[in-house]
């Protein structure tokens, strides 16, 4: 080994000492905490999938604290989803397992579990419109509760005292209603509760309006509605709170929403459904028309029945008068004559009343005509009204005259049977001793009893010698 050290130092150009290969740069072991990584993944996902639309099938739907948890899946994969209570309440249908939906939201990571998930901001049924589904679901539910039952439907009041109306003051609906009511029921008393009928606030506004108007004393029928529009425009009338407000009303409600083709939930719950606001107004006043006619019919029938009764009585009087034992009826005949007198008064009064009523109607019609603007429809309507009024008045007079004639006949017949006339034909009336009753049966007197016998002129006081049964 020493040799080595003794070797002469060779004069060789010293080779530059090869440099040591540079140490490979030390691997920077950047160690992340789980949280840090998760945050990075989350940031990445959230920025990449800030707003996505995903289509899939709902499964494992469950709610907790009002939030909704679900899975969205297709045949190959699944995605965890979540929806906050605050956004959930804007949904118009109830998500359920198996439903094919389209969801909108962002992807985020649920850090505690390291799971990525969809925070869903909107959910709608795929295919079927969300509104339609909401409508079907609510309809089914309320129907199951019995809110549409025919048994719940109340009849409209015969004669509304005050007509409540919940609608917008801006639309054509309120003008249509007022126009119809003023034309057909000029003395109607309307109470209008203005309400929004479109947009987010409409449903609560309508519900509040209904409650408010139900507290106004005297309001005994309510019209709620608006003019026609798209299904979105009419949507407030498909909202559950409006349906429930209608169901809770203490008086009958007429729904009047838009056109005939759209039936809203409100229409199903209401006591009566009118296709349009004008039709609702006509339904209310149609009742008045009906009652005019109804009362008149009743009165005419009563009139006829009493006349028949009087004629029957007078025929019986004839029959009785022809029988030998008629005498006991003399008093009753007298009474009937008096009734006939009263009847004459009653009928005459009635006839006058009937004519007066019709005259009032003609006046009302005249007033209505006067308030019409002389527009396009006027001529035809006036012609119809005038001829109708003519018929009414003429009819009343004719009937009055007929009644009078028949009454005079009846009275004449009764007079011919008055007790004096009968006695004048040679018959007599026999009273018991104290004149408390007419003697009709020989068995009711005994020999020795006193009786009074009334003749056409004068009276006999008699003692009974014998009483024989005939």
């Amino acid at each position, binding site marked *: 080994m020493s040799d080595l050290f003794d070797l002469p130092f060779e004069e060789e150009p010293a080779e530059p000492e090869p440099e040591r290969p540079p140490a490979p740069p030390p691997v920077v072991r950047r160690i992340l905490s789980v949280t840090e990584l998760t945050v990075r993944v989350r940031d990445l996902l959230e920025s990449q999938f800030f707003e996505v639309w995903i289509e899939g099938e709902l499964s494992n739907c469950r709610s907790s604290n009002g939030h909704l948890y679900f899975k969205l899946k297709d045949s190959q994969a699944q995605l965890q989803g979540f929806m906050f209570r605050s956004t959930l309440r804007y949904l118009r249908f109830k998500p359920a397992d198996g439903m094919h939906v389209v969801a909108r939201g962002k992807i985020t990571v649920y850090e505690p579990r390291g799971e990525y998930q969809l925070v869903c901001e909107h959910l709608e049924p795929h295919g079927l419109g969300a509104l339609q589904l909401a409508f079907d679901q609510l309809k089914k539910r309320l129907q199951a509760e019995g809110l549409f039952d025919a048994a719940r439907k109340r009849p409209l009041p015969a004669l509304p005292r005050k007509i409540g109306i919940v609608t917008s003051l801006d639309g054509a609906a309120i003008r249509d209603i007022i126009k119809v009511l003023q034309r057909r029921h000029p003395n109607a008393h309307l109470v209008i509760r203005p309400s929004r009928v479109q947009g987010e606030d409409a449903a609560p506004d309508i519900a509040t309006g209904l409650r*408010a108007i139900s507290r106004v004393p005297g309001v005994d029928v309510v019209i709620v509605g608006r003019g026609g529009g798209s299904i979105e425009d009419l949507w407030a009338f498909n909202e559950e709170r409006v349906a429930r407000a209608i169901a809770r009303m203490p008086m009958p409600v007429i729904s009047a929403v838009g056109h005939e083709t759209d039936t809203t939930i409100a229409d199903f719950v209401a006591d009566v459904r009118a296709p349009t606001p004008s039709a609702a107004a006509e339904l209310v006043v149609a009742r008045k028309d009906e009652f005019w006619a109804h*009362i008149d019919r009743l*009165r005419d029938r009563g009139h006829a029945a009493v006349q028949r*009764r*009087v004629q029957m009585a007078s025929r019986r009087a004839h029959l009785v008068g022809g029988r030998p034992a008629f005498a006991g009826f003399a008093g009753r005949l007298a009474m009937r004559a008096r*009734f006939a007198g009263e009847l004459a008064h009653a009928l005459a009064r009635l006839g006058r*009343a009937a004519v007066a009523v019709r005259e009032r109607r003609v006046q009302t019609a005249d007033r209505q005509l006067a308030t019409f603007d002389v527009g396009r429809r006027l001529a035809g309507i006036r012609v119809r009204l005038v001829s109708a009024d003519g018929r009414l008045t003429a009819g009343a007079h004719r009937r009055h005259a007929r009644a009078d004639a028949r009454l005079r006949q009846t009275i004449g017949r009764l007079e011919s049977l008055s007790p004096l006339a009968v006695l004048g034909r040679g018959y007599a009336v026999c009273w018991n001793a104290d004149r408390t009753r007419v003697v009709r049966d020989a068995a009711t007197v005994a020999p020795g009893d006193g009786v009074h016998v009334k003749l056409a002129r004068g009276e006999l006081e008699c003692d009974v010698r014998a009483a024989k049964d005939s």
Partner: protein
Amino acid sequence: MSDPSIKDFEAAIAELESIVKKLEEGDLSLEQSLELYERGVTLSRYCHSRLEAAEKRIEILNERGELKPAPASLAADPPSRG
């Protein structure tokens, strides 16, 4: 027009109906018929007067629950649109 024997319009109609029915059945004495008939006349007069008696009025129920007369513009037909 406040006949204490008549409760309201609907009751009056109902009573009138039953009176007419009884009259038509015809097994009443003449006296009873006439009494009922008189009552019927009273009832039908009441009904007619009630039909005419309602007050013509249009009111607005505002958010504070107060009733105010409706603006005249609401009731008036807007000037012919055609």
